[in-house]
């Protein structure tokens, strides 16, 4: 945005390294160029239907544009790009000029700001000084204090810290931690094989040693802030520009409108980042066809022979592209930091050391394997179920945060944030309702592409539901759909004439609704006759607690088959009795599975009756904690349906966390329970459900109930054949193979137990 800077840092790759192209560029990016950039990004997002675009405003120093100049830039970017995709706007600054007006601007335009700070005063001022040599430390700390204020906190992205191994790592760590950053980025100083990094002492890997010291402090402190380098280097930690094998997805636009490759290349040689393309005449696609960008799409195949043969290549990804440069061989080298990266990965892996099990025998099992092994028994322990439920709740909270990202701060969001602090149990109870996630996903899905009507904002109803649970007075405008407002897990209010939005006021023991031509007070006395138009969600007592009969929430319609409208009183009571009795049957037959039900099943959705298929059940990936069934009066049959569906729910929660099936698998597998070949994930689900059903029938066979033995043998054969077909298909990941292998083992034990 601005190609000059108000600091004169001697480690800056823009001004102090090999590339000097900044000298021939305009001081600031003209607004016409900004407009052209925005149009190019929007064009690319539209053509490729990108769900998100990340734009980072850089310099030089972008704050030199001033508040008015930045407002023009931000307005151009938002106006051009947000109709087509989600725009994640960020800025990297030295912070010297940051003031309250700029902070307000960044909050207004939802810009997340990273500030450069190299640690304590001595560390920072080793490089980050003004041209006259004066310290920038106080200026930067004042900027960070501004960003920490509650009203600006949402725009505080974190701190960028360039390493100098002459600095004291403990003091640097403490100085960074004192600024309460959401995230810290520790950067290796840019260097190449032509210009290797400073190594002031005799140690061969001073950078790994220095970082290792900070890593130990960070782990010992309970990881009080995110440090991206350490998180990225963990197995499966995700890629960054500096690590990992993910394709390069960064282009830079210089102040004159030139498309350039990633700007760290400026450290390699003069003009290294150039492409010869610009935003006026060339699209993003044309720029990405530049050989320098294209070669970085190849993952491990694009690395040198040394890296390709390295056992940790998937962790470091060959390091930062620029750090591989050597005159003569170009970028076909390991990173000049290769030895440090190798040692650092060892350090990250080795600390903290694995906790030995109580038996005293060293365990080598990872948390992933532990969870999968436990579930592969067929049921899973109470602690595993609690962990799965917690991860599902966490996913829902993240989706809620993503919704806020899309719509900004609203009164509903503010109420949710308030209740999260004041009444966390109420928030937890509402967000754990199985049909909150489908509502949030629907909202996020429909808000992405342009031209499609946005889904109803689910946040006001969630906030009011939490306020009602907590008994906290509140008032919000809540969207109305088909004369109905649904408060998750509490009930639905159906009042013709409510209009499109109604004001809902929560008072102790009641709430009032005003919308359209309607004004109504609803009493929340559970023993009194419900107020007119109010249909509370009914529940039934089961050994696991209270089980909701969910026949009102609009997002329960996520099973790919019609759901029953609200049941009348007798039908609801009949279904409730069947479910309660079925739950007891599960406890009788398979107590381990019953404990798993107790640990997570919270709602049952009645499916619409279909005379052609009277006995059906279903599970939805987005609705953990619920299953759908056709109302049925036989508790023995219902028990089988509950166990079966709960297997799918558990496995679905696992699949949110881990890939058990290789992605992109087109393989179809023949299974004994259907005539048509099935995709691997379907087979995996079938096998896992049938393992549990085998266990149910084997238990029943022990008490000699009719054809239980035949059913047990039948499901045993299905499960065994399905598992074997899966293992033979080579469509599973390593984790998937382990899971199915363990499951197969559990099946053998089941068979032996039955014998």
């Amino acid at each position, binding site marked *: 945005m601005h190609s000059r800077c108000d600091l004169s840092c001697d480690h800056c790759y823009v001004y102090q390294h090999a590339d000097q192209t900044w000298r021939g560029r305009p001081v600031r990016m003209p607004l016409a160029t900004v407009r052209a950039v925005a149009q190019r990004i929007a064009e690319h997002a539209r053509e490729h239907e990108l*769900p*998100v675009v*990340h734009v980072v405003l*850089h310099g030089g120093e972008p704050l030199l544009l001033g508040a008015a100049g930045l407002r023009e830039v931000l307005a151009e970017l938002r106006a051009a790009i947000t109709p087509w995709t989600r725009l994640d706007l960020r800025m990297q600054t030295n912070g010297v000029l940051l003031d309250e007006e700029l902070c307000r601007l960044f909050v207004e335009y939802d810009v997340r700001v*990273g500030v450069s700070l190299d640690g304590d005063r001595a560390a920072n001022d080793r490089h980050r000084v003004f041209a006259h040599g004066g310290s920038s430390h106080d200026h930067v700390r004042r900027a960070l204090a501004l960003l920490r204020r509650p009203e600006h906190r*949402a725009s*505080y*992205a974190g701190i960028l810290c360039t390493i100098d191994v002459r600095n004291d790592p403990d003091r640097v760590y403490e100085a960074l931690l004192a600024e309460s950053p*959401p*995230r810290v980025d520790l950067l290796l100083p840019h260097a190449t094989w032509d210009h290797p990094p400073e190594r002031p002492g005799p140690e061969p890997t001073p950078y790994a040693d220095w970082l290792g010291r900070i890593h130990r402090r960070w782990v010992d402190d309970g*990881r009080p*802030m*995110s440090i*991206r380098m350490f*998180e990225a280097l*963990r197995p*499966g930690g*995700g*890629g*960054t520009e*500096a690590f*990992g094998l993910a394709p390069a997805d*960064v282009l830079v636009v210089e102040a004159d409108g030139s498309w350039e490759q990633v700007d760290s290349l400026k450290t390699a040689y003069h003009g290294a980042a150039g492409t010869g393309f610009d935003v006026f005449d060339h699209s993003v696609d044309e720029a990405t066809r530049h050989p320098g960008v294209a070669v970085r799409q190849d993952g491990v195949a694009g690395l040198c022979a040394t890296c390709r043969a390295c056992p940790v290549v998937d962790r470091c990804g060959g390091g930062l592209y620029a750090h591989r440069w050597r005159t003569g061989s170009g970028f076909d080298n390991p990173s000049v930091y290769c030895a440090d990266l190798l040692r650092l990965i060892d350090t990250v892996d080795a600390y903290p050391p694995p906790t030995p099990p109580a038996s005293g025998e060293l365990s080598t099992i990872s948390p992933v394997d532990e969870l999968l092994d436990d579930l592969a028994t067929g049921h899973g322990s109470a602690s595993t179920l609690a*962990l799965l439920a917690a*991860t599902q*709740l*966490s*996913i829902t909270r*993240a*989706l809620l*945060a*993503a919704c806020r990202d899309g719509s900004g701060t609203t009164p509903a969001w503010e109420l949710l*944030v308030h209740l*999260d*602090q004041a009444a966390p149990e109420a*928030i937890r109870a509402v967000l754990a309702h199985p049909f909150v996630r489908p509502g949030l*996903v629907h909202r996020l*899905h429909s808000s992405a592409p342009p031209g499609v009507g946005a889904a109803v904002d689910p946040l006001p109803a969630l906030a009011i539901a939490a306020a009602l649970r907590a008994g906290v007075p509140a008032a919000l405008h809540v969207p109305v759909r088909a004369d109905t407002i649904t408060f998750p897990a509490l009930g639905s209010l159906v009042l013709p004439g409510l209009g499109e939005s109604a004001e809902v006021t929560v008072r102790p023991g009641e709430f009032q609704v005003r919308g359209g031509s309607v004004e109504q007070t609803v009493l929340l006395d559970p023993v009194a006759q419900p107020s007119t138009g109010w249909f509370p969600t009914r529940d039934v007592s089961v050994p696991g607690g209270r089980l909701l009969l969910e026949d009102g929430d609009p997002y329960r319609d*996520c*099973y790919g*088959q019609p759901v029953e409208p609200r049941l009348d009183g007798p039908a609801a009571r009949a279904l409730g009795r069947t479910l309660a009795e079925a739950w007891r049957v599960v406890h009788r037959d398979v107590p381990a599975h019953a404990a798993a039900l107790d640990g997570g099943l919270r709602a049952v959705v009645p499916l619409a009756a279909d005379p052609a*298929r009277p006995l059906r*059940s*279903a*599970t*939805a*990936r*987005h609705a953990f904690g619920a299953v759908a069934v056709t109302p049925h009066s036989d508790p023995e049959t219902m028990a089988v349906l509950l166990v*079966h*569906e709960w297997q*799918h729910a558990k496995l679905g929660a696992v*699949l*949110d*966390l881990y890939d058990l099936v290789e992605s992109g698998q087109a393989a179809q597998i023949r299974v004994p*329970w259907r005539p048509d070949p*099935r*995709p691997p*994930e*379907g087979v995996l689900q079938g096998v896992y*459900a049938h393992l549990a059903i085998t266990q149910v029938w084997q238990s029943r066979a022990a008490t000699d109930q009719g054809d239980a033995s035949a059913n047990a043998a039948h499901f045993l054969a299905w499960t065994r054949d399905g598992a074997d077909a899966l293992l033979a298909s080579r469509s599973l990941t390593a984790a998937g193979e382990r899971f199915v292998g363990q499951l197969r083992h559990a099946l053998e034990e089941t068979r032996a137990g039955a014998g």
Partner: protein
Amino acid sequence: MDNAPTRPSRPGLDDLTHSLDIPLERIAVEHADLVEAIRRRVVEGGPVPSGTVPVALFNSAI
């Protein structure tokens, strides 16, 4: 360019459990990678299809 967000792979178990202790208003900032990973994996599909699982239909044969 290191201010760009991490390219997310999948939601990590540690991050998911840790984020439960973070106030709602700070999740998007302090767990930006997690939110992005969930958005891609859960909302936008990624390696996992969104919507209902195929077993919903499979179950009709029980």
